[in-house]
């Protein structure tokens, strides 16, 4: 199948962004839970290229941080010691892509902590937490998207293909789900599920809640496609030849829902990533010590963090490239699937 070039560009860009997050273990210099109680709220480490005499150094270096006596979060660089930055160093153990055990990290420095985005109140490296947190947030968003689309496909196909009272009941139910403001619905469901759970349970809980809540819109779209496909001549012909309902659905009707489902996936994925971030931000999602983009931002709910430690707000920026990628992908997909709807493609929606 030949895809237009701009669609390819968005796919490649998104794949690259996800690859960065998938390789978090290698790119992040530290374990996300590794604490350094001596250096809470340390500002981003400065990478130096010029030594004390002002000469340019080929190998960048860092100065270790020294906490000022009797202070909390006041640091000075110890310029006496210059620690060279090294590439592919051995560090904390991790599993690449969750499978391959490794100790190799892209960069690091022996004897000093390199915190590109500063550290949090426990002295944990924000850069490492951001990368690792991305794994949880993105995975939750994508898994929830898959779940929603599976529900949507199942229910929409059933409603459209069976018709009659099945259709009536399912579509009235969909109307109920659409009648609630999305986030309130999400909260309502989350409210009645257990609060204190382990990070892993919380992850599945969040995926489940987000995935279950959003089925109505894709189900309606799928139903529309199925309804129109059902009346096509080749479907009637197949039926005339004695094909079973399951066969017709599988062979002739469901393949036609692919473009709707793909477009919906591109629209829903960023929303669902944001939903996970929002839930974790409010303390209803993945709990500490596991990092997620939401609970990284949750630090900002403390007034002192907001006023004094500007680097703590940097993780918020991580969301925007992904949003851009998915938005671009969604409009390119819509344009490709249905060129007549050029205009509708880039209207943009928010939940």
């Amino acid at each position: 199948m030949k895809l237009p070039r701009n669609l390819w560009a968005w796919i490649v860009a998104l794949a690259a962004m996800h690859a960065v997050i998938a390789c978090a273990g290698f790119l992040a210099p530290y374990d996300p839970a590794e604490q350094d109680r001596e250096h809470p709220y340390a500002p981003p480490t400065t990478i130096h290229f010029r030594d004390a005499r002002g000469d340019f150094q080929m190998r960048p270096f860092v100065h270790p941080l020294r906490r000022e006596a009797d202070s909390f979060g006041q640091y000075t660089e110890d310029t006496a010691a210059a620690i060279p930055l090294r590439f592919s160093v051995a560090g904390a153990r991790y599993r690449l892509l969750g499978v391959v055990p490794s100790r190799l990290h892209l960069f690091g420095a022996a004897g000093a902590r390199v915190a590109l985005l500063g550290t949090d109140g426990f002295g944990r490296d924000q850069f490492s937490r951001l990368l690792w947190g991305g794994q949880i947030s993105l995975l939750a968003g994508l898994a929830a998207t898959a779940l929603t689309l599976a529900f949507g496909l199942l229910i929409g196909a059933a409603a459209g293909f069976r018709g009659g009272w099945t259709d009536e009941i399912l579509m009235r139910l969909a109307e109920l789900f659409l009648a609630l403001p999305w986030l309130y619905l999400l909260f309502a469901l989350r409210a009645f599920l257990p609060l204190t759970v382990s990070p892993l349970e919380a992850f599945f809980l969040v995926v489940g809640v987000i995935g279950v809540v959003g089925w109505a819109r894709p189900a309606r779209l799928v139903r529309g496609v199925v309804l129109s496909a059902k009346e096509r001549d080749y479907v009637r012909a197949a039926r005339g030849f004695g094909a079973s309902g399951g066969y017709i659905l599988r062979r002739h009707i469901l393949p036609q829902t692919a473009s709707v489902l793909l477009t919906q996936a591109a629209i829903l994925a960023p929303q669902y990533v944001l939903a996970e971030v929002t839930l974790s931000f409010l303390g209803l999602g993945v709990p500490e010590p596991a990092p997620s983009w939401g609970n990284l931002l949750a630090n900002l709910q403390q007034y002192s963090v907001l006023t004094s430690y500007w680097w703590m707000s940097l993780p918020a920026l991580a969301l925007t490239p992904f949003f851009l990628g998915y938005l671009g992908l969604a409009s390119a997909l819509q344009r490709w699937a249905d060129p007549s709807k050029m205009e509708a493609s880039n209207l943009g929606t928010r939940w």
Partner: protein
Amino acid sequence: MTRYVLRRIAHAALLLTGVSLLTFLFTALTPGKYFDEMKLNPQIAPGTIAALRAQYGVDQPLPARYARWVSGLLRGELGYSFAYGAPVGPLVGVRARNTLLLTAVAMLLAWGIALPLGIWSAEREDRWPDHLLTAATGALLIVPDLVLALGLLLFAVRSGWFPTGGMAAVGAESLAWAARGRDYALHLALPVAALVLSTLPMLVRHVRAAFLDVLDSSYLRAARGHGISRRRLLYHHALRAAANPLLSLAGFSLGTLLSGSLIIEVVMSWPGLGPLLLEAILARDLYVVIAGVLLSTVFLAGGNLVADLLLYWADPRIRAERAGT
């Protein structure tokens, strides 16, 4: 007309009943969790907890609880808050008023900006102001509302120009009315700005698309040929013609606005439904959650009802359709 209105109202009422049933079904997942946490406290006797459970009716099966809640609702009671030990109605009422104030101001402002901006952009289709605006709305679209709210909060904290939470300064009641109004406006500014910025791109793009559809229609070209002024052409003739998709969008965007305000209220500590709902979830305060969720549906259904009525008023095609059937 009356039949149309009655049908819309009946539809909204049915929807509300359905949503209340749905929420109660959700509660079946964990009935009476609030009291389960009391069991962990050795100072509370098991008998006390059982008595409390009976008092609040959480030991009864789901249909009985629903019947009890509905009969209370008919008497104007929304249930009883476990955590506050007070009726839910007044508790939620104040918060709902604040949320309504926030969303209403934001909605008016957002449409007030989006309408002229979208029309202006549609008039200059494919010229650089249009491209510039599309790029600007695109840039806003990729900033999630949570990030937007946090950014504005950070701005307020750093600049010190705006208060960073609440609805009014301490002791605002004793101020003269002008100073009090200024105080309210300052507190409203940031949450409203966050809400407007998060809904604006979607609205502008829809207005632009709706007007593009209308602007090259033959009747508008004829009207232009008659020498009708640009202003009257756009804001009278074209607006009436483009009203249909925009009014539907207005109803739909209310849901977006309510969801957005939920987060923004929490981030900016605006005393609306958002923070109350969050507290209630964390405290397992069953009936507060149900009331909050249901109120949001009432707002949304109400907004859609108003949009439907406006549509009936604005679009003769719908009136004709009704008269025909």
